């Protein structure tokens, strides 16, 4: 996955609560067997009308937000279905980080596994950033992950928290499976002990 160091770009505000993964990636885009071609599906119903024409009033279709890298979102973003297609589509659309008050659990894990940075902040700070994101004059942010800080043009500096292991994996773009397989011996030893005590689990 693509490492996340310091990224700069426009942010867009999507304030609705409970934006679910059916909205982020509607079901007609779930029929593939690879990860590609999902940019078109991201927020499809919000971005395009029934005839497939872009809706001019949707924020990501407006020229000031053409190169959007960050979303500032409402609470419980990414709830619902486990579909990782939602995260793949957002990344393919160019989104690198999402800032909100709370994220649904499976969505958060999917994001971490693909290098999409999620930042949780208190409602006041999210509201402040949403205000910046909604203003085309001030919507450029810089997110410095190693420094754990969000910077805006008006000298705003906002620190954020992230678990150390998650940050390390994002900054280095680590392959989690490779890292785990380094412990294959420990897994095998555990498995033998575990099944010896529970013989009914062996099929």
């Amino acid at each position, binding site marked *: 996955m693509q490492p996340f160091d310091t990224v700069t770009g426009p942010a867009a505000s999507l*304030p*609705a*609560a*409970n934006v*679910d993964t*059916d*909205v982020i990636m*509607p*079901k007609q885009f*779930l*029929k*593939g*067997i*690879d*990860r590609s071609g999902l940019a078109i599906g991201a927020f499809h*119903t919000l971005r395009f009308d*029934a005839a497939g024409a872009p809706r001019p009033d949707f924020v990501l279709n407006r020229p000031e937000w053409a190169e959007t890298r960050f979303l500032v979102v*409402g*609470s*419980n973003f990414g*709830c*619902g*279905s*486990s*579909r*990782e297609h939602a*995260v793949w589509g957002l990344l393919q659309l160019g989104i690198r980080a999402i800032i909100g008050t*709370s*994220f*649904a*659990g*499976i969505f958060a*894990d*999917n994001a971490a*596994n*693909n290098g999409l940075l999620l930042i949780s902040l208190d409602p006041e700070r999210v509201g402040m950033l949403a205000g910046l994101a909604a203003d085309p004059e001030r919507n450029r942010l810089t997110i410095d992950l190693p420094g754990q800080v969000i910077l805006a043009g008006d000298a705003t500096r906002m620190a954020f928290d992230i*678990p*150390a*292991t998650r940050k390390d994996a994002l900054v280095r773009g680590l392959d*989690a*499976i490779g890292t*785990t*397989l380094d*412990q*294959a011996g*420990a*897994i095998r030893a*555990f*498995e033998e002990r*575990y099944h010896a005590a*529970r*013989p*009914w*689990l062996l*099929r």
Partner: protein
Amino acid sequence: MSPRTLYDKIIDSHAVARLDESSGPGAEVLLYIDRTILNEYTSPQAFSGLREAGRRVWRPDAALMVVDHVNPTAPQRNAEMPDAGGANQVRYFAENSRDFGIELLDVLHPLQGIEHVVAPELGFVLPGMVIGAGDSHTTTYGALGCLGFGIGTSDIEHYLATSTLRYRRMKTMRVTLNGALPPGVTAKDVVMALIRTIGASGATGYAIEFAGDGIAALSVEGRMTICNMAVEAGARGVIMAPDQAVFDYLADKPRAPKGDLWDHAVEHWSGLRGDADAVFDREVRLEASEIEPLVTWGISPDQAVPIGERVPDPSAEPDVARRKDMQRALAYMDLTPGTALEEVAIQRAFIGSCTNARLSDLREAAAIVRGRHVAAGVRGMVVPGSSSVRRAAEAEGLDRVFIDAGFEWRQSGCSLCLAMNDDVLEPGERCASSTNRNFEGRQGAGGRTHLMSPAMVAAAAVAGHLTDVRRLAREI
């Protein structure tokens, strides 16, 4: 050692290694996963990842592959899917089953069905296990005393390659249900009441342990309904301590242990409970006697009210953001504040999904429609949760009850729950649905979903509008 919850004990017994210095919620461990269930739409990219990296599946016999999301539910079954995308997914699914040596229940298999219905009825999931699987409703298995939670495709790949997940411990929430449910009130109403009480993100970051005499009094199938839908409150993992009802449920399941192994297992399972003085991060109490049949009026599962009430008025909501969410929901649902819910007419009625399409659900719905008929202008569908449920229902004549009442009696699959096959709502159609998600467009672009219990769906189908099942039940 300080007193531990059942969740803590299960995580501790499955921790291969610690991955950071911390302990308690947020601490990262390498977690051993006992079983997984794979479906055709969230797994393909995981197998592609294994192929690209030249990796094997660590324990092929711990996984089960089930086709359920994309297949049609028309009475005549065909191996080929009618649409190119679905056909491609099903073909690749079979190829992955062969190449990686994992058992497949394809659409023609007599045991095919919705994954969360099939796994328990096979005895594939057992108490004390940790089940991580590529579908959010994996929480269902909590009813059997195992910890179930959904994972995304990257984690499916991680699981397949290692039999483990890199896992962060959750906070714990205990939900206690006190007392007995009044007549006409079901497990579905319990979980909808919970979601309504704590909100659609009320359990985000938590694993829920259900407890109380109200839970103990429920059937195992009813408990599955609760664990299944608890994910709609954001719960990332659900568990109920296993009891005699669970052991009785499992005793005759084909893949459950037999003979001495069974006795050994039950002895071990009987000890699966939290310490009496364990402390939870949050406690929620529900009084069964206060729960009524609920229906959703909006586009989030927490937007629900008792059937006797009216569509709420956003202008009475002081919080601006919530008011806007309510307005958006009512606009999508085409509902006017103050309308009595019992006056809302429907065009579709759907009894199905992993939440509510087990045999007991079909029995409850059939009891309501027996000797009655679906109202004019309503299309009613019954989609059994599995092919086994379908056969069992036919053996006791439930198919005739539904067909005589004007319902379509269909083959098993996810069907109209997420409309990835050809069972879809037309734009503007309003559906009484026994499913779990009323999101915008979930059952078809522009379709309007009202969630409720299967008996309530049956009552609405007969009445032609949302209605209180207790009224019909009195007339039986």
